[in-house]
């Protein structure tokens, strides 16, 4: 006889089918349940700001957002610096830390990608230096304008600001400035022990304070694997003068994947890399010890017209959505 199938049996069949479906879709990933048609970072939003609308009110048009950085000067207020690419050159929009509005919109030929909250409570963007009240206080060495990959830190002990960039294919330029951005020294440190012939691009630098690890994220220009150069602290870097990598105990962590669009950020809790391998477009947090993935945030099908930034302490990150023109402040997922 043909047995009569009941609705209860159907529910059982459905339940087992769903379990199979869930397993197939990767239930083991914590982020499994957070994925739907909505932006994945909706769960992490702390604040949002309609940058498009705010700039329009100020009469400012722009082509794209070139860079976003949260700057924390010594003794100063945290601010969000948004570098805009316009038809007439670079513009700088400065927002408060809670994304409540644009505090200042600047047009200056000294603007560039280099940004640092300095040792005197001010801010540098390119060679333009602003004080705590966002008034122009100085113009630093013009080399900061041309250094596309410049990154920096401030040393409270010596009251100096330091900018680093790849001055040549195998040379790390280290420019040290007084608290008022007067240039005091600018040696070049060869990175020969670890440099490929084509040289590196300095993607990011992490040096929160003198005692914390000093880490460089280097992208070989020949397209080979990214590299994290990890030293125990700033003193180790100063002592080695760059030459010591590999020989003075500095860890060289090669990542086993390629970055999507060369985007990587260094935080106190690990490096965050934009990846598109394994058919999953994601922000992947990488362990400094072994270069392995700690966790990741799924990003959806496309990161087109999206600009990301992670603050060094690893508490917040920023995402600008070029399609909607909205800037988001987000909690990190770890």
């Amino acid at each position: 006889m043909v047995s009569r199938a009941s609705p209860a049996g159907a529910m059982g069949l459905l339940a087992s089918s769903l379990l199979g479906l869930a397993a197939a879709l990767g239930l083991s990933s914590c982020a499994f349940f957070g994925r739907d048609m909505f932006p994945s970072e909706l769960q992490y939003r702390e604040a949002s700001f309609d940058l498009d609308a705010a700039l329009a009110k100020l009469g400012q048009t722009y082509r794209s957002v070139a860079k976003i950085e949260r700057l924390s000067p010594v003794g100063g207020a945290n601010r969000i610096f948004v570098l805009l690419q316009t038809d007439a050159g670079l513009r700088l929009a400065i927002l408060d830390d809670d994304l409540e509005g644009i505090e200042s919109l600047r047009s200056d030929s000294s603007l560039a990608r280099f940004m640092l909250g300095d040792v005197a409570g001010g801010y540098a963007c390119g060679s333009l230096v602003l004080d705590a009240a966002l008034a122009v206080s100085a113009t630093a060495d013009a080399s900061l304008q041309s250094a596309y990959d410049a990154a920096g830190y401030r040393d409270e002990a010596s009251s100096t600001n330091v900018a680093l960039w790849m001055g040549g294919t195998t040379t790390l330029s280290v420019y040290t400035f007084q608290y008022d951005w007067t240039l005091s020294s600018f040696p070049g440190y060869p990175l020969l022990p670890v440099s490929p012939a084509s040289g590196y691009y300095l993607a990011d630098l992490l040096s929160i304070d003198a005692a914390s690890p000093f880490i460089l994220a280097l992208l070989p220009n020949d397209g080979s694997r990214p590299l994290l150069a990890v030293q125990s602290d700033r003193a180790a870097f100063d002592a080695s003068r760059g030459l010591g990598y590999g020989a003075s105990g500095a860890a060289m962590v090669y990542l086993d994947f390629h970055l999507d669009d060369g985007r990587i950020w260094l935080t106190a809790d690990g490096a965050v890399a934009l990846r598109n391998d394994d058919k999953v477009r994601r922000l992947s947090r990488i362990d400094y010890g072994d270069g392995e993935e700690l966790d990741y945030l799924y990003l959806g099908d496309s990161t087109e017209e999206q600009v990301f930034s992670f603050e060094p302490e690893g508490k917040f990150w920023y995402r600008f959505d070029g399609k909607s023109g909205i800037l988001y402040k987000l909690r990190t997922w770890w």
Partner: protein
Amino acid sequence: MRLHRSLAAGLVLALGSSLGAEPAALELDGGRAVVLASPREAASEGFADFLAQALAQEAEAAGLTLAPSLEGEYGAEEPAAAKAAAAGSGARWVLAASCAIEGSRLLWRAAVYDGARGELLGSDGFSAYAGLTALPLLAGSAEAALAAARIGGRSSADDAAPPISFRLSFASSDRGALLSLGEGEASFPLGEVGESGLEAPYLPFKPGQRLVFGLEKEGFWPARKSFVVKDEEREIALPRLQPKTRMAAYFSYGSSRRLGAAAALRWYPVADWVYLRAEDAFWCAYDFLPGSRPVFHDELRLGSGAYLFLSPSSPFRLSAGLGFSGIATWVGSSGLEQRSGFDLCLEPFFWTLEWHRGPWALVLEQRLLYSLGSEGGFLARGWAESPDGVPFLALGVLLKW
């Protein structure tokens, strides 16, 4: 008046209720026949012998071998006598010849029985003046009886094999449904499906014969079953009748709402062909990671669909439709200026593949969703992107009434 009764035995026996209790078939030789002559009366003895001989000749002409003839007993019922003759001779087919004189007339009857069950397969009876002129008529009756029984290898290649010796039995969960041989007005009712299915009256089908059965029940779509007769006794599974659906409830789980579910109501203005649907889906997006806060969504979806290609009695059905939906969203983060939003979406196409099992069906659904980029919503204008590249799929159960 001539009493000519060359009837298909199955139709005759279908009217007789006594057939339902027949014992199982005996192990008999389907290639053999035995002649059973009725008890002799002196007056008709010569005619009876002639009729028996004529039957024997017809059987031999049909390719059957003959067992020694037997004579029946007075007072015995012919079917029982036929079974006894078969059991005694080992021959499957029993050719019964009976004659009687009434006045100046001779009455006779030639009959062919399936000795395994005592079932009449064919017969021919007549009366005539009891003289020599009756002999050709006796021979004609013998030929007609054999022809009506359709046994042996005489008629055609199809008739070469003997008919099946068992009654067809059917398995069905549709209790109370009426099973018919054939479809439409030309159909012949076989009976009503009971608790344990249905055993049809004996019908002398030949192995290899293709049959069509119809199954009907009030409130259900009729179904048909095509079947090729086998020479082994085997239960025939009838298709499950699909109820005529006016309303249905639908519960589903979707790839784009992993921590939630949806419930829908369908109304069919045209039963099992066209439906209007209202669905509400509630889900939560939550990564269970330290920085994440739950985001709640509720989607109200309205639309209509129609079934394509396959008839309502088919277990597999395909439907397609369109609609629109509104999605309300609540964000768990407390610091956000915009903690709630509403997105309006068009659904220009959805399809369902459904496996129907009586009052319920398993449904796989996929849809395309276009966000209108509503002011105050969280979705940008454009086609909604499904997570992980998996299309918007949902699996659910449809409960119909």
